[in-house]
């Protein structure tokens, strides 16, 4: 029987939605028992949230002062210890999981399955390669521990309402001091989180300036949407890197994605493949974005955006 340990992503007080999506992925393995590990300086609050996820049997709390920031070099040896007795160790394919999980896999002496998008069996998975332009089905050897990251855009968040038991776990691993956290800077915008928002309005290079990007923010606020951007817009300095959607940015799956002035390079499309409805607004009717769009409108975004905002109840 599969025994799965999921590594929780959190900010010290709040469990990240990526963990609930990882649980949904794990639950696709028939008959699996699912535990969640919370590594923190004081994991009590996060553990309580993890214990409420439907389908979770047990939460392991691994408290250590060194776990105050999620440093892969510090977390990985503790996770490798906790992994004993488990057949599978899953983490989210977010920047947190991409950092820590391969380090865990190497300590356990196995390759990692990156970006599970479909579970076909306890050792058979589908994952995207070539920026999602091909889908690979692989078999992990049956006698090998499975260390994997979960492509969060491919799974819904698990329900809550359960009440799993919470246990302390002392990892007793030697922790390095060679890696030290200095700072984290991020925009607390008050807008929905790009990764988990049900609606996203994204702007591209055609916006022309950071100032013009206000049009995107304004429409997003009208729609209750998160704001995203193409790589071109980020590279041009219109917005910060954490808004980038695409192969090298965030992979998202909102109900509604509105792409404004984005041509639709393959690398961008990779990030929005799973969006339920894609709306494209672009002045170039030949732009590749229209091939993927469910609703396309050719025209000048500087005229369309204010009109759209007004039509939506301005």
């Amino acid at each position, binding site marked *: 029987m599969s025994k799965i340990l999921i590594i929780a992503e959190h*900010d010290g007080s709040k469990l990240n939605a990526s963990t609930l999506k990882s649980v949904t992925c794990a639950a696709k393995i028939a008959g699996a028992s699912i535990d969640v590990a919370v590594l923190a300086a004081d994991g009590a609050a996060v553990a309580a949230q993890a214990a409420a996820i439907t389908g979770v049997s047990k939460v392991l709390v691994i408290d250590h002062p060194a776990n105050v920031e999620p*440093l*892969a*070099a510090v977390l990985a040896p503790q996770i490798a210890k906790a992994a004993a007795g488990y057949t599978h160790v899953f983490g989210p394919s*977010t*920047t947190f999981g*991409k*950092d820590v*999980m*391969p*380090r865990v896999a*190497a*300590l356990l002496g196995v*390759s*990692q399955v*990156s970006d599970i998008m479909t579970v076909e069996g306890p050792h058979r998975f589908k994952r995207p*390669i*070539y*920026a999602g*332009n*091909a*889908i*690979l*089905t*692989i*078999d*992990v*050897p049956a006698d*090998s521990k499975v260390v994997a990251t979960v492509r969060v855009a491919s799974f819904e968040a698990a329900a809550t309402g359960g009440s799993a038991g919470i246990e302390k776990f002392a990892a007793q691993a030697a922790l*390095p001091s*060679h*890696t*030290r956290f*200095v700072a*984290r*800077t*991020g925009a607390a915008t008050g807008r929905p989180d790009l990764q988990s928002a049900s*609606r996203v309005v994204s702007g591209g290079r055609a916006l022309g300036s950071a100032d013009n990007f206000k049009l995107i923010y304004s429409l997003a606020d009208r*729609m209750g949407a998160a704001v995203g951007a193409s*790589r071109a817009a*980020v590279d041009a300095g219109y917005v*910060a*890197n*954490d808004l980038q959607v695409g192969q*090298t940015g*965030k992979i998202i799956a909102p109900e*509604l994605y509105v792409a404004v002035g984005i041509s639709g390079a*393959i690398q961008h499309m990779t990030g929005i*493949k799973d969006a339920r*409805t*894609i*709306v494209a607004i672009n002045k170039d009717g030949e732009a590749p974005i*229209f091939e*993927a769009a*469910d*609703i*396309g*409108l050719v025209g000048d975004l500087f005229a369309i955006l204010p*009109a759209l905002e007004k*039509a939506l109840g301005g």
Partner: protein
Amino acid sequence: MRRIMVGVKRVVDYNVRIRVKPDNTGVITEGVKMSINPFDEIALEEALRIKEKGLADEVLAVSIGPGDTQQQLRTALAMGADRAILVQTDAAVGPYSVATIFKKLVDSEQPFLVLLGKQAIDDDNGQTGPMLAALWDRPQAVSCSKVAIDGSKATVTREVDAGLETLEVDLPAVLSVDLRLNEPRYVKLPDIMKAKKKPLDVKSLADFGVTEGAAFTTVRIDAPPTRQKGIMVKDVAELVAALQKKGLV
């Protein structure tokens, strides 16, 4: 000798439209342009800039792949790497095996810094950097957008979902680099001529005690599902109507 080791992978050029083979065993690579993985090119550029600041003496480019990978290593030498090592194999080599080979290379080459792309654009695994750091028991920083070397330490900024994170790491360390770290230089013709004379050692997997290829068995490779063709609307009023019909506004 202050040495930087850079991983260079040969991949299908990023401009090539990927097509899956009709028998679902792989993607078509015959007659397709091959290049240095773009993230690895950025890693190499950063290594060259560190050397040009006088903070390193030598840049070593290493790769694992078929004999034709010499083309990418010659390009790396033309960009400015001092020497190259190719671990030649026609077999697929999984990230854990790559990290195992790289670990043996750092044991013999003793770099103070290893720079790699954050992922290769073919397999999109993004595992080699953290795995090498684990096997080496050294610091890692994934998705670096800024690197500052200061004696026995480095201060790095990395791109994370929440914004930017700054870490201080003791050297040696393994850094995987992101797109915004730098813009790689173009190779000039005289440099291509010069690169032909630079040392390029060819080794085998057996030299590193690695026999096994990929860790996982490929069952099949499929083209991704295509989206249904959408509709075009002619103005904002029609757009709003279409959104309303779908219950989205």
